[in-house]
């Protein structure tokens, strides 16, 4: 099962590239895009954990993370547009 480490390494490299863009992004929308993509990559990582560690509840974490990440993305985009949250 050595190639599990290969897959986990690919996903960890993806996470670190997103973190690079969050840190170095020249503008605020760059950082917001990276946060959105980071949430989606982490959903895949949590599902890989569910397979490798054989724990069922990680799938529930993946569902919850995808929904929370979506709401965060919408809030960030509305903030970027310069609107208030109750409009």
């Amino acid at each position, binding site marked *: 099962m050595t190639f599990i480490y290969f897959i986990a390494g690919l996903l960890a490299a993806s996470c670190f590239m997103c973190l690079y863009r969050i840190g170095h992004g020249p*503008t605020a*929308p760059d950082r917001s895009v990276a946060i959105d993509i980071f949430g989606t990559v982490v*959903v895949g990582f949590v599902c890989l954990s569910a397979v490798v560690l054989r724990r069922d509840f990680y799938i529930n974490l993946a*569902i919850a993370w995808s929904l929370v990440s979506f709401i965060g993305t919408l809030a960030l985009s509305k903030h970027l547009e310069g609107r208030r949250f109750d409009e």
Partner: protein
Amino acid sequence: MSSNMIVGYIFITIGAIFDFFGCMGLVRLPDVYNRLQAATKCVTLGTIFILAGTAIVTADPAISIKAGLCAVFVLITSPTGAHALARGAYLSGVKLWERSVVDKFKERAEEIKSQRGEAK
């Protein structure tokens, strides 16, 4: 290893490779809109492949149904979030890359800005 585990791990590997190249596009491309389209499309497909691989490897109906539900959520929410982010980025005044050739949102964005100026 049984056959369903082999097929499922192949799916998971394809998904991880798609995620990796999507995030490479996030680092390498020149402006917000290029980064957004590269990363969103690749990472959505890759995550759905990983979820399908999870459903195939475990072969447990309780997990497979949840994985399919999560795949539907990702398939709906990820393009919606990307669309909202692109609109927010344009209206917040981020310029396109200087070698971009077409800008179809320009007139509509000016309309939106003038309407908002009247409202204030």
